[in-house]
């Protein structure tokens, strides 16, 4: 769509983004509040960050969260990519409808149901709840998100690239690794990032499937939030936001630079 940008459009965007960002900005500001009362400004201070780093419980939970995130995101990316390939490349096999149903359903499935059902599975097969079960649960729901991201790239993939590779003498498996995989790599990377974020954010499914010694950061934050808002939690949240924000900004800047470079190249090519 292309048209003039009316005042109404601009106002709705500004208000919309204010609504989206104001709560997060306030949270960040009050993490630097010297006062113990989270909603009364008592001067600038970083003492809550110091306390945060001295809080063994939170630090341990953070470490568990990161490990679960790294492992589950990696395995989910492999499985999700395979699922995406299945959905786009094999249009006819028995049980395809069931398969695509199982890929899309977890995207909207209420977390309480997914969490409960996975827990009951682990109990039924006699798996001890802990690090392992949380990781398996995270792989299961995040692989579906990876599948959707990778699939949308595969749908627009030009199949003649693969035909060209085979025509030039590359057998199918080699073609996949030398042509298909490198071309869809950006989508796979963003799938991994999405899986990682989903994993480190998850509270409900982790609560159901985790056991002793495998408390994740969101579980820890949740148990403290129930007792009331504390500046220390504000500080922890700010750090999490900062990590994600830096990651996203760096990724998009790199992307932007590539894009600018590409545009410049294309213009150079046009000139001759």
């Amino acid at each position: 769509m292309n048209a003039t940008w009316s005042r109404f459009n601009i106002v709705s965007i500004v208000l919309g983004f204010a609504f989206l960002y104001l709560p997060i900005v306030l949270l960040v500001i009050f993490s630097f509040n010297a006062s113990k009362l989270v909603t009364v400004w008592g001067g600038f201070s970083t003492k809550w960050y110091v306390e945060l780093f001295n809080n063994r419980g939170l630090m341990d939970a953070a470490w568990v969260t990161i490990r679960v995130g790294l492992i589950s995101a990696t395995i989910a990316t492999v499985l999700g990519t395979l699922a995406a390939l299945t959905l786009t490349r094999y249009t006819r096999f028995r049980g395809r409808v069931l398969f695509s149903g199982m890929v899309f359903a977890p995207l909207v499935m209420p977390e309480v149901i997914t969490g409960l059902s996975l827990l009951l599975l682990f109990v039924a097969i006699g798996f001890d709840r802990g690090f392992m079960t949380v990781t398996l649960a995270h792989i299961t729901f995040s692989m579906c998100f990876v599948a959707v991201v990778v699939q949308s790239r595969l749908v627009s993939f030009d199949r003649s690239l693969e035909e060209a590779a085979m025509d030039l003498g590359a057998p199918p498996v080699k073609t996949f690794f030398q042509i298909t995989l490198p071309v869809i790599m950006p989508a796979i990377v963003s799938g991994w990032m999405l899986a990682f974020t989903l994993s480190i954010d998850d509270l409900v499914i982790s609560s159901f499937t985790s056991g002793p010694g495998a408390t994740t950061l969101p579980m820890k934050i949740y148990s403290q939030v129930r007792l009331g808002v504390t500046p220390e939690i504000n500080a922890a949240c700010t750090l999490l936001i900062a990590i994600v924000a830096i990651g996203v900004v760096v990724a998009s800047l790199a992307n932007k630079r590539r894009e600018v470079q590409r545009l410049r190249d294309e213009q150079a090519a046009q000139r001759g």
Partner: protein
Amino acid sequence: MKSLGSIRRDFAPWADPGAKPYISFENVTKKFGDFTAVNNLSLNVYEREFFALLGASGCGKSTLLRMLAGFDEPTSGRILLDGQDLRGIPPYRRPVNMMFQSYALFPHMTVEGNIAFGLKQDNMPKAEIEARVKEMLRLVKLEQFAKRKPHQLSGGQRQRVALARSVAKRPKVLLLDEPLGALDKKLREETQFELMDLQQSLGLTFVVVTHDQEEAMTMADRIAILDKGEVMQVATPAEVYEAPGSRFVAGFVGNVNMFEGRVAARDARTARITGASGAEIIVENAGDAETGNAVSFAIRPEKIRVSSRRPEGAVNAMEGEVFDLAYLGDMTVYHVRLDDGQVVKASSLNASRVTEDPLTWNDRAWISFTPDAGVVLTR
């Protein structure tokens, strides 16, 4: 060294009954579900030939190319290349290479990488690959672009990379799928001649798919005209134009006027054709038409003369009225409505700058043509 022209003039293996075809389609049928893309088709292509498959979209020409490359297998019939049955051989083991319509350049590889890709699959020694890539880059005049990625190239440059990549392996046959389709008109005309030079200098067999008749006429030694999965005619460009084998071919290639009628009389050399309105045409190229046959007489617009008076001594002449004309600069196209209602197109070359007494709208006019100007078609 022989000039290109003389090589092409003397090249006619299809006319030699002893010549062995290089590529043979033998009764090939290809079905996709209920749809028959190619129907019991047989076709021969000779070594070093520049062969064009011409037809509208959906006529099966691309399917033929894809079966030759190995992306699709015939439902029945067989394809031979240099005496070898290609059935069951996957694309990556066939000695043919293809230049894709979309070029299909690998976006994550440089120009060099793209050209070297096929050579690497053959485990060619590194030094040889480098030498071959250099040679190919020189051939398509892209030496200074070796390190660029495809998106850093213009459309014409991409086309040349695709070409270099597909000939780098010295395939027995090069398949080209609408090779000039994505280029603008001017570039297309230049590239046509470059392709012909390349084909001659490498001594390769080219099979090109195109929907552009001008392109096919310019480049190809022979053209196969396809319709609904069947071959309508295989012939040199001049034969296709001057001696079309059927009404379809006559109408498909170039402009044509058709007169419907019956053969009233014929002898060894000429035939007399009578139209529905009683108009008579005397023709020399009557082919296999026999007395009583319903036939079409096809004649190209440039072979018809338009004049304000009946030309003296004209064998075939009819009267009508100019109802439309288009001045195109180099020539003028007249639409003359004959008195029996048929509209005839006639083009005349504007050889001199000023014409005395030019014909214009609503003028009475005569069209005339010689007995050998057109052909009689029974199919």
